[in-house]
């Protein structure tokens, strides 16, 4: 599949191409010093560009088609993954995947949204947009984890819950509400990580937990910048302003005290190096698991109630 290059990444790729060319020439010419200079320049350029990304640019990175998805993280950081299927009520939703895995010394349940990389796999995964059966499948897996006393790790990466006719018939709203309700009182630790897009109730449907982590180049909000633009500005053209107004990036959410921790990505984004990205995430998850598995279920539930109870801003 062709490489996807975002607009703001172009200068980097251009310079990298030049560097590649020089390296080829260096067999015959003595330009090693020049090469080192350009390598330094590439590094500075990258650091500069990725440090000063606008919110809309982060949204684009969060949607990057080469970004690691849930299954990539599972394959890169866990062992003995046994994928489970189905909600036992209607069918198997392909937009949500999950199963028991070995993560370091821990046996855990991993559940996450799953996108596809190209048209074919995206149709199969419904672009990571779950139907009610997806949320019910996730709940079934969480209940299994609770039964066998295993922590739950969820990974959020969805443009939203699927807004379809059948989704409404089968109770999309009820399915999400039920998950919020049940996750708030699940008797095992839950660690939530936003690994890409976190759009609204479709994201939160697997997003209640004891720790909320967010990868550096993700977004999480009540609505996508495009839909926000179309509703409030009555036009699709204000997505960049909408992204700014919604304050939806990881640093924003940390400041708003709605997430606990930002997980750094490899320079240029998680898509530049899946293994490295998974390695960083794995280390953080193990650290959090070490703490959470020591806490008694009653304390976990109480803590969760308090954690979400504090979220909000109002004047009395």
């Amino acid at each position, binding site marked *: 599949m062709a490489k996807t290059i975002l607009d703001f990444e172009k200068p980097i790729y251009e310079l990298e191409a030049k560097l590649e060319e020089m390296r080829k020439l260096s067999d015959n010419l003595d330009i090693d010093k020049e090469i080192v200079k350009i390598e330094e320049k590439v590094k500075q350029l990258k650091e500069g560009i990725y440090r000063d990304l606008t919110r809309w640019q982060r949204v684009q990175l969060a949607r990057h088609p080469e970004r690691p998805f849930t299954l990539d993280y599972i394959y890169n950081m866990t062992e003995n993954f046994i994928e489970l299927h189905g909600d036992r009520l209607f069918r198997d939703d392909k937009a949500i995947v999950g199963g028991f895995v070995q993560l370091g010394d821990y046996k855990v349940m991993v559940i996450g949204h799953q996108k596809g990389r190209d048209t074919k796999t995206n149709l199969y995964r419904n672009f990571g947009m779950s139907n009610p059966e997806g949320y019910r499948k996730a709940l079934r897996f969480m209940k299994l984890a609770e039964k066998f006393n295993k922590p739950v790790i969820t990974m959020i990466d969805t443009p939203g819950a699927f807004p379809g006719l059948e989704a409404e018939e089968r109770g999309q709203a009820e399915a*999400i509400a039920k998950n919020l309700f049940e996750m708030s009182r699940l008797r095992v630790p839950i660690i939530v990580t936003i690994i890409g897009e976190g759009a609204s109730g479709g994201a939160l449907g697997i997003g209640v937990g004891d720790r909320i982590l967010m990868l550096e180049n993700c977004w999480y909000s009540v609505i996508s910048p495009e839909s926000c633009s179309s509703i409030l500005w009555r036009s699709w053209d204000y997505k960049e302003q909408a992204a700014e107004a919604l304050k939806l990036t990881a640093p924003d959410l940390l400041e708003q005290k709605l997430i606990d921790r930002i997980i750094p990505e490899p320079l240029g984004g998680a898509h530049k190096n899946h293994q490295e990205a998974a390695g960083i995430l794995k280390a953080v998850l193990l650290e959090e698991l070490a703490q959470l598995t020591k806490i008694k279920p009653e304390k976990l539930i109480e803590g969760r109630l308090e954690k979400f109870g504090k979220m909000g801003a109002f004047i009395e």
Partner: protein
Amino acid sequence: MAWFKRSKENISPDTQKIELPDGLWEKCPECSEIIHKKQLEVNLWTCAKCGYHFRIGSHEYIKILIDKGSFRELDKKMRSADPLQFTDTKKYTDRIDETILKLNLFDAVKTGTGKLNGLSIAFGCMDFKFIGGSMGSVVGEKVARLVDKAYKSKIPLIIVSSSGGARMMEGAFSLMQMAKTSARLARLAQAKIPYISVLTDPTTGGTTASYAMLGDFHIAEPKALIGFAGPRVIKQTIGKDLPAGFQRSEFLLEHGFVDIISPRKELKSTIYNLITLVS
């Protein structure tokens, strides 16, 4: 003379347009019946001819459901703090200030305690007029505290919803109100205190996907629009017209997401009977 030139008089409606003095009369959107406001109030804001339920707010529902003089409001003056300093075509703070002035409401939900045919209850009611009945931090916090009131006082909880969903102008803060309210309801459920969710026209988005769909009993008013995604979005997604009655109360009853459809006139007695049967 051109063939299309009009030879007769202009087309005119059969009936003369009736000029209505402002504020006294309402026209039924369903059957076009002209109803006097007093008559409408006597009929609990429903059309006597076709049964259409007008959209009403917390002020009216308190009159309908709560015994006279028994309502005690909680957190009356809680208002939005604009955590994102949000501006679209208008500043969010201006929008809030203007709406408060216009409606004499501080946000999109009113909460408190009161009596329903003598039974003590915790009661919340949303106002769709207040920025589309949207749920931001204030709605979330007031609902959460109302649930706590029911929990601590061990009294049944009743929430009447009408909402377009989560409030965009508070971004992720609004989203988290769904988790906040649901978590509190989980605790209430464990204490075995009944919660009745009343769904009115319209209840959609994040409100439906949290407390409105978490009742022990779901009562809907006739023909109310209830759903997660709005009909316009769904139509865009599937590229087809939606079937008649889609996402209406009767549709939800048919698909198993609503227990009872109750006309407004029977709402109070239905709630009363349910509570007495489970307590």
